[in-house]
Structure formats: structure tokens, C-alpha cells
């Protein structure tokens, strides 16, 4: 079972549990009110029930599908999701590689390309690390908003991502990030008068 297949199963289980919880919550809010009219709990219970139902159906489908290959007829009828070639070309899939992502159906169509480098020659593992770093930096920037203010925090974010994560040259990265900040300032602060948080520094 690949990571994505396992992820899909986990997602379905989580949604099923959430759905059931919503049904319970909805009943608590009152599905109907006096006179049998729709109450505030109806839609939560109704949609929660649907989420749980479809998540279970999906779960069953995923468990069953794992062993069946799609038939030629299904392929002709377009019942199987097509191979999605994303921005990065064909999505690679190597069994056993914990980083590889592929959905159940893709696995049947996509030939193993083996090499999985992007145009900068970065491996999947490196890109996974990049993703973690970018997410971490965003969280840091959001915390920094309290300190240096919204615009400065995000201009720094652009600069750091460009230089550290993407390996861009310092000068162009600085120019781009400051320019982006300036345009944002012009539109949001000057024209639309959005009160962006200024943080403890209180400059802009």
C-alpha cells in the first residue's frame, strides 16, 4: 500500500468520524423545533450523516479497488480518473519510497519513470523538505507579524524563501520582495486603507 493509498484511507476514516460527531452534535442542537419544523440541528445532522455515509462508501471502494485492475471497458468509458500530469510532469511512483505520492488509479497507468528530478535536479526527498521549511517559515512569519508588523514580516518571508529555499541570488530577491511589499502597500494600505497590523515596531 502506498502512502497516498493509506492517506486516502485515513482521510475517509477521519471524515466518517467527523460526520458521526456532527450527527451527534446536530441532534444535540435540535433537529426539529416545536411543531415539527426544521430546527438548528437539522443541517449539521443531515450533512454529517451524508459525509459519514459517503466516506464509508469511499472506504469500501478503496479497499476493494486495491485488488482489481480497471478493465479495458472502464478505461474506454472514462470511468477511471485520467493520469494527471501535474506541473512537474509525470508523477513518479516508486514502491517503498515513503515520499512517493500516487493515487490508487494512477498507479496502474503511470509507468515507473525511476528518475524523479525537477528542472533544478532536486529529488523528491529534497522537495519534501522544502515544503516543510516553507510551512515552518509561514508560521514564523505569522508570529513575527505581532512583532514587526504584517508587511515587514511578509516581505522578509518572500526574501528568505527566494534566497534560502529556492537558491535565488540575494540582490534580485531583495528587489523582488521589496517591490512586492511596495505594491501591496500601495493597493491595500494607501488605496483601500486596510489597517494592517503594525506590530510592536509600528513602522508600517
Amino acid at each position, binding site marked *: 500500500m502506498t502512502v*497516498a493509498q493509506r*492517506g*486516502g484511507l485515513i*482521510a475517509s476514516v477521519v*471524515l466518517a468520524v467527523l*460526520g458521526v460527531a*456532527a450527527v451527534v*452534535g*446536530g441532534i444535540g442542537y*435540535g433537529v426539529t423545533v416545536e411543531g*415539527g*419544523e*426544521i430546527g*438548528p440541528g437539522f*443541517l*449539521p445532522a443531515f*450533512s454529517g450523516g*451524508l*459525509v459519514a455515509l*459517503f*466516506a464509508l462508501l*469511499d472506504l469500501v*471502494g478503496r479497499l*476493494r479497488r486495491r485488488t482489481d485492475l480497471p478493465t479495458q*471497458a472502464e478505461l474506454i*468509458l*472514462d*470511468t477511471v*480518473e*485520467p493520469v494527471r500530469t*501535474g*506541473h*512537474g510532469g509525470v508523477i513518479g511512483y516508486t514502491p517503498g519510497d515513503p515520499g512517493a505520492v500516487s*493515487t490508487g488509479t494512477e498507479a496502474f497507468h503511470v509507468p515507473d519513470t525511476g528518475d*524523479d*528530478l*525537477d*528542472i*533544478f535536479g532536486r529529488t523528491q526527498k529534497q*522537495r519534501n523538505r*522544502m*515544503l516543510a521549511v*516553507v510551512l515552518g517559515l*509561514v508560521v514564523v512569519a*505569522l508570529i513575527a*507579524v505581532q512583532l514587526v508588523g504584517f508587511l515587514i514580516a*511578509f516581505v522578509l*518571508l*518572500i526574501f528568505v*524563501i*527566494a534566497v534560502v529555499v*529556492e537558491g*535565488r541570488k540575494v540582490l534580485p530577491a531583495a528587489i*523582488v520582495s521589496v517591490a512586492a511589499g511596495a505594491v501591496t502597500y500601495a*493597493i*491595500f494600505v494607501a488605496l*483601500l486603507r*486596510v489597517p*494592517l*497590523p503594525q506590530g510592536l515596531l509600528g513602522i508600517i
Partner: protein
Amino acid sequence: MIDNLILGFSTAFTAENLLWCFIGVLLGTVIGLMPGLGSTTGVAILIPLTLTLEPVTALIMLAGIYYGAQYGGTITSVLISTPGEAASVVTTLDGYQMAKNGKAGSALAISAIGSFVAAIISLALLMALAPPLADLALNFGPVENLAIMILGLIIVVSFAGGALSRGLMMAAAGLLISTVGVATGFSDARFTFGNINLLGGIPFIEVMIGLFAIGEVLHQIRMGADAPIRTRFRDMVISRSELKRSAGPILRGSGIGFVLGILPGAGSTLASFMAYGIEKRVSPRKAMFGKGAIEGVAAPESANNAAANANFVPTLALGIPGGGTTAVLLGAFTIYGLQPGPRLFETQPTLIWGLLVSFFIGNVMLLVLNLPLAPVFAQMLRIPYGYLYPIILLTSFVGAYSVSNNMFSVLLVLIFGIIGWIMKELDLPMAPLVLGLVLGPLFEKALVQTSALGQGSFLILLQSPISVVVLLFAVALMVGPKIAARVAVRRSPRPTRTPISDDEREDAR
């Protein structure tokens, strides 16, 4: 009628009005380019700018902002998969795929052309038929709205894509998310866990920015950078065959949009989703949908523009806003000392006809401005992704913040960004979730009202002729394709790409 048109043109065609119309369209486009800032916010925030102008001029400028902001949202939907408002969510499905295939220019051009055609058709209908149509629209009460909503949900089901259960699961999840907060007609706070920021619910704008913009950025980082799209300028221009293929979708989209736009509340989001769903049913190239079909951009774009214009039917003829932006525009009327209402056509003919004609001019300007600019905007994709995505992060978060001036929105965007990324990795469709989220409150309101009117019984749905017709249409949509597929299978020995319902696809497994 002719007199009125002449009056309108002579009012709108002054150098000053044309200038302000142009400024409005330009400012609107820039605002629409910012994630989170749609036409409603754009118009509301810029009203103070217009206070020094003549009322006609001010309204002309505001209408320009309205149209401009809508088109700006389309540009970001196509280029970076970030819809400006719920009505352009559908545009991302095929528009973004077209951009990835190097056809961003065509996608933008067809949106401009489709919007223009839709605007002209709907304006002509608006001018000719506003008062009688408005009376007709009044017949759509809660009961009829519920029927329309059911029809809408069924059409969505029909284009949920290959895996039906996953589409339905996400639509239901969207409905569920929409129940957070205080419901219409009740004072119970649901699923807020004591957080006052959640009392008003989870706003779909933040969810949309998170799922689409942030989710896509995270997904792309994980997928690895691709070479910036390099196509020759010539290839960015729309081709004749693409234009030909789009004619039908544009006309059908305009029709659907206009009809739904007249109904107060039904709105342009539903119109764009329905136009896409219907196009996917009738198109001979339905397999291309979701992979960059130009029809999948033309139809919803025309629909939401036609709906936006049709929104003015109840606004001008009854003094009742048909949607968010028209509500803000009505507010502007009172600021200029005009009382919107059923008599506006009689008491302020210069203003009304000037405004209607200026809608026309605004759309012409938008087309003139954007047809040549479409390839230029498409060049944005040449920016190395290493620069582009941090900038997308910045504008997304600032845009989210500016919706309600609250850091909580920024947090929501981050959370839904991570959810969106997980959904992309797991191949879970996002459009049904957004539709569920947008329709949820409307659906719940119609349910509560219908049940209150029927004193707990839904038989009232069968007592209104309009709702019966709508429901019959919904049943036909559900059953029709199955019958058609069976007939087709009987006729040809080999299964072909004839319409086949998703239910059967599921069964086939």
C-alpha cells in the same frame, strides 16, 4: 425604448463619464487581481472615492469597478488557480489546466469575449424586460428557491468527476462546514467551541483562498518546479477553432446565468456551476473537461457575467438587491440622495438609462482593454515559480486579512491551505466543497423557511406549480442520461463515449 436609449447614450457618452468608467474598470481589475477582494468589497471600499462626483458619474464608475473586479478575479483563477469570488471557482477547473498547457492567453481571451457577449445579451434583456421580469421573479419564494437549490445540487452531483462518492463526500463536507456559527432564524451557536470569531460562520472567501491558492502553492512545491511556461506570443492568441467551439457554451451560459441572476438570492455562483455541469453533459468533448477544455471556461464565465447583470433586474425595478454587490450599489444610491425603488425608472430616467448604457460601455472597455492585455497578463507565468509562490503567499494572506481586518482570517487561510494541499495529494475534488459551503446557508435558509411556511410539512413543495416544474426537471436530469445511455448501448455494439451517468460508472466497478 429608442428614446430611452438615446437619452442613455447622450448621458453616458461624455468625456468625463467615459474617463471615470475607464478608471473604474482599471481600478476594479487591479482589485480583482488581489485574492479575497471581490467586486462587493471593491465597490464598498471605493464608494468614498466617488462622493465628489455627480450621481450618474459616480454610479458609472462603481459599475466599472464591479465589472473590472469580476474580470480581475478571472485572471487569477486562470493563472494561479486563485478564484476572486465563489462565482469563479468553476473557472479554475479548466482555466488553470489551460494555463498549464500553455493556453492561458486563450483562456483569458475567451473569458473576456464570453463575459462581453453575456453582458450584451443580458443587458438587452434587462433593458427590454426589467419590470415584467421583476414581477415574475417575485413568484420565487422560499419554496421555489428550495426546489432550485435541489436542482443545483443534483447538477453538481452530475459533474463530480470520476469518483462520485468522493465528490459527494466533499460537497457534504462543504455543507457541514457551512453549518458552523449561528443559523438563519435561530440564535443557537453551532460548533463554535466558544470562539466568537466563529459565531458568524466560516467565510467561504478564506476557505477559497486557502484551498485554492495556498493549497496549490504547497502542492507545487512538493511536485517540484517546472520550467516556466514558454510559448510564443502568437500561441497566446485565441484561435479560430477555439472561438467556434465556444459559441454554444457562451450562449447557453448566458441564458442560464440570466435566468438564475433574476432570482434574488440564487446568485451567480450557482449559475456558473450549473452552466459548467450542463456543458459537460451536452459537449461532444466531455472527456476534455477538467483537463483544459475551453468550453469549461467559456460557459461559467458567461454565466456569472449574465447573472451579475440580471441581478440588476430586481435591484432597479423593485429596489431589492439581487446579490451582494448590488446591495452595496443600492446603499450608494441613498448616499447620493436617490431612493431606489419601483419608481426609479419614472423619476430618474436620465440616471437609470445612463447607468444601463454605461454598463454596456464598461463591458466594451473591458473587452478592448483585456483582449490585447490577455497575452500580457499570461506572461505573468514567466515569472520563475521560486519568486511567484512567495508573492502568492503574501497577496493571499493580505487579501484574507483585508476581508474582515482580522488575523483570525489569516489563520483560517493557513488551516484550509494545509487541508487543500492534503486534498490535492489525495485527489479529493475541491470545487464540490466550495459549492457545498456557498449553497449551505442558502439551502438551510430555504429549508427552514419552507418548513415554517408548511408548518413542518414539505408537501408545500408540490403545491407550487413553479417548484413542481423545477423538481420534474431535476428528476429528468437524474434519469434522462441513464435512459439515453441504455438506448445508445443497444444501438451500438461497442460502448462509446455516449452520456453515461455517474451512478452507472460506480456500478461498473
